[in-house]
């Protein structure tokens, strides 16, 4: 007969136990699951993105009703457990008893409420579950002032979310600097500066004396009698294990429910406990990685008794967009401990490594956390770092000499290296998923769960995508361009302008490149910077371009190429279609695909056929679509007022005009435009790099949208009345982007760094600067606005054929 398992609490830890248990032995237990919240298991870690509006509750549900159904789990959600009778082996719910053979207590933790006057007033909330989150979202809808008590992880995420939702937020923190358990003072200072930059007031050494108000909260009074107005008070000073049921049931309870390494109660072998309510060997647990370890142990203990829990180091990451921090291990100062510190005040970067003997024992990073997981690995594994000590702080790219690719550290990891600590996913599993078609972060998450919990390993997973898929995934952090130089992209751009460096050799020499002529990482970037800044003086270097841009076609995995002729504004004619069809047949093109950018892709063309197929397409009046370039790709349009009964302006005409102006220009990364004829937005202009939505009164110009690895709506640059103004702003934005962005940053990443206001000042407000930008763009286009296909056909066709064919000689 099936054994009966009762689980109290449907949080992330017990959810993981149920996953393991029902995977390993679907029929071993008849399971009843109690949850006081009226819902099942969701990803509590992601409540902050829900609060800030980046995600919805539906996005973070881990187990839905179907999931429980399929596994035959009886759910008693919204029902409190009143007591546990261990003698009778029965759990008493509000709506009746359930007998058990094994009991799992997963009651999690409760927020700590500081015992001050006014703590129970309406408008004082904690930050623990979805209901709290919704309460905050509701409160924020009215605007006003919020006071967040507690400057730890949870408090800061709450503060950032409320600020994002338009509230005027003050954070009160008892200690001298924010997140003192995870950060040292210097990193705490940088974090504070970043938060203040986004309008959040931070008060440290601020002790709350009372919460004021008569029938709802009106303010907070500090020990020093300062009074802060508040429409909402969030208490996020900490959590403590929720142990009331366990205590009442006579189990052994210290700070948490005492368990052995099999997660069995010290007092009763038929009772297990998991998650934040547990105390093991003096430790409490608040982060997800150890909870998932525990879950594995519980599941296997429930089945065959093997497995035992080991306490591991954990790494921390704050989920506030734009505040990049990382900490792991032990970073308190102490005897026999030494620090290696790296600071770059102007870029807001701080890194500190704590070394004891020959081992790294702690790491704190702010502003650039790309190497965090590598350091975390060194800490966990106790690696002897003596030999790399001198360059350790510069990260894995600098170890082992040679012109190491920044990605080589990830590439070098063995397949069984753990990438995602939360979910225990190793590199091999992720690579397998990517090769299986998981082409972006979301897909990898869906397939493997890697980076789907706390997100700390997102960077690593992105690097794995890049290593596995090749072109297109560049990390956004401010790190050196590559192993050839210590300078960042931003430094190199600035120096090329200020020192008037007009050749690659000048860059290598004057900026102290460590390699004779760069590498595949820096050469394309430097080549771009030079041609963007000195269009007349510098000549584009095809040998510094990735094959696609050198051959003006996309290389495919089998070494063939794809050919995409331009269709201006997505418009074509029967003659063009006939010419494309003829070319497809003539060159045995195996695959013809209609792209998302409103044109036609001929895939599988042999390298030596390229000049010939281009010549044929040229003859029919078509030119390169630059579907391979870091440059203008497409301008997607709808048919506008010519045909559509809703169209307000000539969106097609504007799209064609824009494409004819912008085509051929090189940009830091690809640029896609959309022009929609009305707010119904059939051209999907609001997720483009630049998107114009026509309205009755004129044109709404949005920029910095994304619909790739990230999805993001455009931000409004300006509303203008005339078509010419729409064109001018578009050109000026393009040129500002060309002059300033880091190579391989799409506009949305660049705008996130410089701020939309900075862009508006130059493109919209300062008319002289706008005119300069347009003029500079036109100057550059006098060189680059031409068809590279025609040029290659005329001048370089022989380069597409082999230099020599020795197989013929052998036949003689």
């Amino acid at each position, binding site marked *: 007969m099936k054994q009966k398992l009762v689980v109290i609490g449907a949080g992330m830890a017990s959810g993981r136990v149920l996953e393991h248990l029902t995977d390993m032995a679907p029929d071993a237990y008849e399971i009843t699951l109690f949850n006081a919240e009226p819902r099942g298991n969701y990803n509590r870690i992601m409540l902050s993105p829900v609060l800030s509006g980046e995600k919805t509750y539906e996005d973070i549900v881990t187990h839905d009703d179907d999931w429980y159904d399929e596994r035959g789990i009886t759910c008693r959600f919204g029902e409190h457990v009143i007591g546990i009778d261990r003698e009778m082996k029965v759990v008493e719910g509000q709506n009746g008893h359930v007998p058990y053979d094994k009991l799992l207590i997963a009651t999690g933790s409760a927020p700590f409420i500081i015992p001050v006057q006014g703590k129970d007033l309406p408008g004082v909330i904690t930050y623990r579950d979805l209901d709290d989150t919704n309460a905050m979202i509701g409160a924020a809808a009215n605007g006003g002032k919020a006071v967040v008590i507690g400057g730890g992880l949870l408090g800061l995420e709450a503060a950032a979310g409320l600020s994002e939702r338009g509230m005027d937020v003050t954070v009160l923190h008892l200690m001298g600097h924010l997140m003192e358990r995870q950060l040292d003072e210097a990193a705490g200072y940088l974090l504070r500066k970043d938060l203040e930059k986004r309008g959040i007031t931070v008060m440290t050494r601020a002790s709350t004396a009372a919460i004021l108000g008569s029938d709802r909260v009106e303010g907070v009074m500090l020990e020093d009698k300062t009074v802060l107005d508040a429409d909402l008070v969030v208490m996020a000073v900490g959590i403590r294990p929720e142990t009331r049921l366990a205590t009442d049931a006579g189990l052994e309870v210290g700070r948490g429910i005492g368990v052995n390494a099999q997660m069995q109660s010290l007092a009763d072998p038929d009772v297990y406990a998991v998650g934040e309510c547990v105390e093991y060997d003096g430790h409490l647990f608040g982060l997800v990685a150890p909870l998932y370890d525990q879950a594995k142990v519980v599941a296997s203990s429930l089945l065959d008794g093997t497995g035992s829990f080991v306490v591991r180091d954990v790494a921390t990451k704050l989920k506030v967009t734009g505040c990049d921090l990382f900490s792991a291990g032990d970073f308190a100062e102490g005897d026999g401990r030494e620090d290696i510190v790296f600071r770059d005040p102007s870029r807001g970067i701080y890194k500190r490594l704590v070394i004891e003997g020959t081992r790294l024992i702690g790491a704190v990073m702010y502003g650039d956390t790309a190497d965090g997981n590598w350091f975390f690995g060194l800490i966990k594994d106790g690696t002897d770092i003596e030999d790399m000590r001198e360059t350790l702080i510069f990260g894995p790219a600098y170890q082992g000499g*040679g012109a190491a*690719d920044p990605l080589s550290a990830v590439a070098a990891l063995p397949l069984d290296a753990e990438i995602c600590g939360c979910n225990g996913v190793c590199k091999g599993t992720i690579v397998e998923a990517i090769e299986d078609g998981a082409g972006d972060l979301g897909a990898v998450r869906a397939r493997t769960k890697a980076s789907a919990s706390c997100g700390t390993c997102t960077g690593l997973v992105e690097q794995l995508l890049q290593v596995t898929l090749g072109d297109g995934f560049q990390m956004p952090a401010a790190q050196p361009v590559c192993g050839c130089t210590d300078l960042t992209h931003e430094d190199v751009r600035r120096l090329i302008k200020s020192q008037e460096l007009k050749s690659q050799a000048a860059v290598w020499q004057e900026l102290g490149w460590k390699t004779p002529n760069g590498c*595949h990482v820096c050469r394309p970037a430097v080549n771009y910077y030079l041609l963007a800044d000195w269009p007349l003086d510098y000549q584009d270097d095809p040998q*510094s371009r990735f094959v696609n841009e050198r051959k003006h076609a996309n290389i495919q995995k089998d070494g063939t190429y794809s050919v995409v002729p331009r269709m201006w504004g997505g418009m074509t004619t029967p003659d063009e279609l006939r010419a494309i069809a003829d070319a497809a047949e003539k060159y045995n093109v195996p695959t013809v695909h209609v792209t998302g950018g409103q044109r036609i892709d001929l895939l599988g063309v042999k390298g030596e056929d390229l000049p010939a197929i281009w010549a044929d397409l040229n003859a029919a009046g078509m030119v390169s679509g630059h579907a391979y370039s870091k440059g203008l790709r497409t301008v997607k349009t709808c048919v506008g007022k010519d045909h559509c009964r809703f169209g307000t302006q000539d969106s097609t005409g504007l799209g064609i005009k824009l494409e004819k102006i912008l085509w051929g220009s090189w940009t830091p990364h690809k640029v896609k435009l959309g022009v929609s004829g009305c707010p119904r937005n059939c051209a999907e202009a609001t997720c483009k790099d630049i998107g114009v939505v026509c309205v009755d009164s004129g044109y709404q110009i949005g920029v910095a949208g994304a619909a790739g690895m990230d999805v993001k709506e455009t931000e409004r640059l300006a509303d203008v009345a005339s078509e010419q103004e729409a064109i001018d702003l578009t050109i000026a934005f393009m040129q500002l982007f060309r002059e300033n962005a880091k190579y391989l940053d799409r506009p949305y990443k660049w705008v996130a760094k410089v701020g939309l206001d900075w862009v508006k000042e130059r493109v919209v407000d300062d008319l002289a600067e706008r005119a300069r930008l347009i003029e500079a763009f036109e100057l550059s286009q006098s060189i680059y606005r031409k068809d590279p296909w025609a040029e290659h056909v005329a001048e370089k066709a022989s380069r597409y054929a082999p*230099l020599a064919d020795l197989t013929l000689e052998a036949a003689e």
Partner: protein
Amino acid sequence: MSWIDIGPIDDVPVRGARLIKTQVGCVAVFRTAEAEVFATSDTCPHKNGPLSEGIVHDQKVTCPLHNWVFDLNTGVALGADEGQIATYPVRIEAGRILIDGDAIRQRSAA
């Protein structure tokens, strides 16, 4: 050695490469500097990427498909990747590139 003339040096761009077809398959001829050439198998041992389309830097080439980097002197993959490509003797004489035909024939016989 039997040197075979495969063409003028100026047909290969500096820090670029060209392809030659041989009995052992495609061979890439690299020009790493004004008067410095190398020849190796064109095929990356990783996923068969065409090395003659890679970015040439120092005396190295980066495969265009997945960024493996090879030392053109030895053919050995650098950094984390493990693998090796065949290399062939090649030299410049009077502005022409000559490749060792014996080396290619030996390899095809082997």
